[in-house]
C-alpha cells in the first residue's frame, strides 16, 4: 500500500503526504474506531432489547428493582466471562468454568467450612477456584495438553468431586453474614453488593487487558505465540497465569452464587462454559485468539441476561426462550459483521 514515492518526495523533510489513497486496509479505520463500531452495534442490540422490554412490560421492566435484578443475575456469569475472555484472547478455551464454580460453591458450603464463617467460605471458594485454575494451567502450559482436553478433564473431575462432597444434597448456608450480602438491606446507594463486585471485576479486567503488560502478552500469545516467544515473553508462564485468572474468577463467582442462592449444590454453574464463551464471542473476542474485549463481553452478558429477563416478564415458555436466544445470538453476530464491513468502507 506504500506509494511509489519518488526520491524527491523521500527527501522532503515533512515526509510523504498523509493523503495517500487507501489500498489493502483503510488507514482511516484505526483500531480504536473499529472496536467502537463493534461495541456500538452491540449497544444497538441492547437498546433494541430494552425497547422491546419497555414496550411489552413497561411497568415491571423499567423499574429500578428490575435493573437491580438484571445486573444481579448478570453478575455471577459476568465474572466468569471476564476470566473466559482472557483465556480465549490468548487462543485457549476453558470448558471447566461451570464445574469449577460448582466445586468451589460446594466445597465452601460444607458444614466444616461454614464453621469458619464468612472468611472461611470466601477463602475456600477462591482457593478452590485458583487451585483448579492452577491444575488447568500446569497441564496446558507445562504438560503440553490441548486446552480443550485439559479443561474437559477438569470439567469431569470437578463435577465428580462436587457430587462426591455433597452426596447429591443441597448444602444450605447458615452463616448470616454471607446471607445478608444478598438481601436488599445490603445495597450500597441502591447498588447490590454482587453488582458492585461485578463492576470491580469488569473494571480491573479492562485495565488488565488494555493497560498492562499482562494484557499485551495475552494478546501476543493469542495472536502469534511464536512472535511472542521470540519477543522474549515466557509464553508458558503466561498461559499458566491465564488459567489461574480464569480459576480465580470462577472462585469469586462461586462465592457470589453462594450469596445469591444461599446454598451450595453440585449442579451449580450448569453450562456456564457455553454461556461465557457465547457472551465473549458475541462481544467481539476472537475465538482463535489475538483479540479480546472486556467491554464487549460485558455487553454480551447483559444482552443475554436482558433477553432472559424480558422473556420471564412476558411469561414465555422455556422452549420459546431457547429458540429466541439462539436467533438473537445469530442476529447479534450478523449485525456486528455488517456494521464492521460498512465501518471499513468496502
Amino acid at each position, binding site marked *: *500500500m506504500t506509494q*511509489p514515492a519518488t526520491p524527491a518526495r523521500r527527501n522532503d523533510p515533512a515526509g510523504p503526504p498523509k493523503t495517500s489513497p487507501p*489500498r489493502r486496509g483503510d*488507514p482511516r479505520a484505526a483500531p480504536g474506531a473499529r472496536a467502537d463500531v463493534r461495541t456500538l452495534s452491540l449497544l444497538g442490540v441492547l437498546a433494541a432489547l430494552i425497547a422491546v422490554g419497555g414496550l411489552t412490560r413497561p411497568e415491571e421492566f423499567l423499574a429500578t428493582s428490575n435493573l437491580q435484578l438484571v445486573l444481579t443475575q448478570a453478575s455471577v456469569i459476568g465474572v466468569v466471562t471476564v476470566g473466559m475472555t482472557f483465556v480465549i484472547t490468548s487462543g485457549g478455551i476453558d470448558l471447566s468454568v461451570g464445574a469449577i464454580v460448582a466445586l468451589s460453591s460446594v466445597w465452601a458450603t460444607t458444614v466444616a467450612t461454614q464453621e469458619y464463617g464468612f472468611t472461611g467460605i470466601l477463602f475456600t471458594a477462591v482457593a478452590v477456584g485458583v487451585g483448579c485454575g492452577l491444575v488447568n494451567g500446569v497441564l496446558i502450559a507445562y504438560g503440553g495438553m490441548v486446552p480443550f482436553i485439559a479443561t474437559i478433564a477438569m470439567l469431569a473431575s470437578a463435577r465428580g468431586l462436587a457430587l462426591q462432597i455433597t452426596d447429591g444434597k443441597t448444602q444450605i448456608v447458615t452463616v448470616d453474614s454471607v446471607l445478608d450480602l444478598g438481601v436488599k438491606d445490603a445495597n450500597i446507594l441502591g447498588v447490590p453488593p454482587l453488582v458492585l463486585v461485578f463492576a470491580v471485576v469488569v473494571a480491573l479486567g479492562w485495565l488488565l487487558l488494555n493497560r498492562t503488560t499482562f494484557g499485551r502478552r495475552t494478546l501476543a500469545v493469542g495472536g*502469534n505465540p511464536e512472535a511472542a516467544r521470540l*519477543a522474549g515473553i515466557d509464553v508458558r508462564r503466561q498461559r499458566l497465569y491465564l488459567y489461574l485468572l480464569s480459576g480465580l474468577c470462577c472462585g469469586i463467582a462461586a462465592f457470589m452464587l453462594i450469596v445469591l442462592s444461599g446454598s451450595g449444590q453440585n449442579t451449580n454453574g450448569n453450562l456456564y462454559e457455553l454461556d461465557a464463551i457465547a457472551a465473549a464471542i458475541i462481544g467481539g473476542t476472537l475465538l482463535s485468539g*489475538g483479540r479480546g474485549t472486556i467491554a464487549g463481553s460485558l455487553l454480551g452478558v447483559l444482552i443475554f441476561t436482558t433477553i432472559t429477563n424480558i422473556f420471564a416478564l412476558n411469561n414465555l415458555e422455556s422452549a420459546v426462550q431457547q429458540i429466541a436466544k439462539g436467533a438473537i445470538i445469530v442476529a447479534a453476530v450478523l449485525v456486528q459483521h455488517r456494521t464492521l464491513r460498512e465501518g471499513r468502507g468496502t
Partner: protein
Amino acid sequence: MPPSTPLLTMSAITKTFPGVRALDGVDLEVRTGEVHCLLGQNGAGKSTLIKVLAGAHRPDSGTITWRGERTALTSPIAAMRLGIATIYQELDLVEGLSVADNIHLGHEPTTAGFLVRRKDARASATRLLARLGHPEIDPARLVADLPAAQRQIVSMARALSHDVRLIVMDEPSAALDPDEVDNLFRIVGDLTAEGVAVIHISHRLEEIRRIGDRVTVLKDGRAVAGGLPAKTTPTRDIVALMTGRDTEHTFPPRPSPTAADLPPPVLRVEGLARAGEFTALDLELRPGEIVGIAGLVGSGRSEILETIYGARRPTAGHVLVDGTALRPGSVRSAVRAGIGLAPEERKAQGLLLIETVTRNVSLAALPRLSRAGWVDRAAERAAAQRATREISLRPDNPDAPVRTLSGGNQQKAVLARWLLRGCKVLLLDEPTRGVDVGARAELYAVIRALAAEGLAVLLVSSEVPEVLGLADRVLVLREGTVVHTADARDLDEHRVLDLVMEGSPAA
C-alpha cells in the same frame, strides 16, 4: 575488550531436528561495526543459525563467545539482554496489536512494573519510525492493517528499540521498494558507524556488494567459506560456493515460436477492476505462454491475481476461461474452471504447515483421488510423488512435514498441488520470494517446463529482472493501472523502472 576481539564467535554449532541435521558444525565470526553477510541456499541452515543467535533454538553442541566471554543463549530474553536483536522475515509480529505495542512487546515501558505507559510507548515508537524514515506509520494502527513493507519497518523499529550491539536481518529488502532499500541501507550505515554490527541475509548479490564488509557462505548446514571480502569476491565464486555449481543463475530459453503459433487464449480478463486497488484491466493468456506483471510493492499486483482467482470480488468486469465467464468472487468457480494460485504468503495462504508433503500436494485433487468420500491413500501418495518428482522437490520424501522444507521446496509443493490438480492457468505471486539463487534457477526451469506442457502462466514479481527473464510478455503496472504492455525481449530493466516510477530516474 581489546579491539581485535570479535564481537561474536560461534564455533562448531550443531543442531538436529527430527530427521534433519540443520546445522553441522557451523563457525561464524562477527566483528564490531561490520556488516557481515550470510549467504546460502534455502535449507543451508541460515534460519536455524539466526534462531540459535536469537536464543529461540538451543544448539546441541558448539560454543558461543560474546565479547570474549563464553555465553549460553538460553532464551530470547537472554539474547536480547546481551544486545542481539533479530528481524525475522515473518512470524515476529502480532497482528492484533498496534504498531507501538509490537515495537515494545516484551519490554514495554511501565509504571510499577505492569501498567503500560502508553504515551511513552507511542512517543518512542514515533521516534523510532521517524529514525527509520517512516514517520507516516501511525503507532496506534493495528499491524494487521499494514502492508508487508510497513511491517518490515515495524520489525526493524522493534529491533532498534533495544539497546543493540548486533542486529540480525533476515532478507530485510525482500518486501521493499528500491528507494526503501536505499533508506534501509542508510540506517545500516548509521548503525555500523555507531559500532553496531549487522548480520545481513540476502539473496541479492548487488546489496552484498553495496553494504557488506565480509561474507560467510553456508551450505548443507556447514560454513563452506567464512570472512570473504564482500566487495571483491567474484560472484562466480560465491555462487559456486553456494550451489556447488560453477554457473550464475540463468533463465530457461524461451521457445522459439511466437504468439501467432500459440492456441487461442484460455484466459480472458475483460475490464476487471476493484475500487481503490486497480482499474479496468484487459488481459489475454494463451496456453504455453508466460505473462509477467511488473510493478512496485502496493501497485495492485497481488490484488489482480487474487481477483482473477475469485478471492476478491471485482467491482467491475469479468474473467473468462475458455470463453465461459466465472462467477465473480468465487474461488470455487475459478478452481473448477482450472485456475490455480500460488500465493505470495506461502505459509499463511498456501500450505498446511504441519501436514505432510503428500497431504499438501493432494489437497486440490482429492475428489479425483477418492471414491464416495473415501480417500484412496495409496493413489494419493503415488500421485503426489509423481508430481513432486516431476519438479524435483527435495527431500524426495512424501511423508516429510511441509514445515521442515526450505522456502523453494515449499513453493514447489504449492506448484505440485496445481500440477496434480491439472489446472490450465497458473497464477504465481512472487514465486521466488525467500528462495535463493541456486534454487531459483531450478524453479524458473520448472515454471517454463509447465508452460511448455501447455499451461498458461501469469506471473507477478517485484524483481524486474525475474519478470523480464522469465515472461514472454510483460504488463507494467503503476498505481493499479497498466501503463505499458510489450514483448519481454523489447524491454529492459531500466525502461521498466522508468515506467513504474513515473518517469523519475530509475534506481
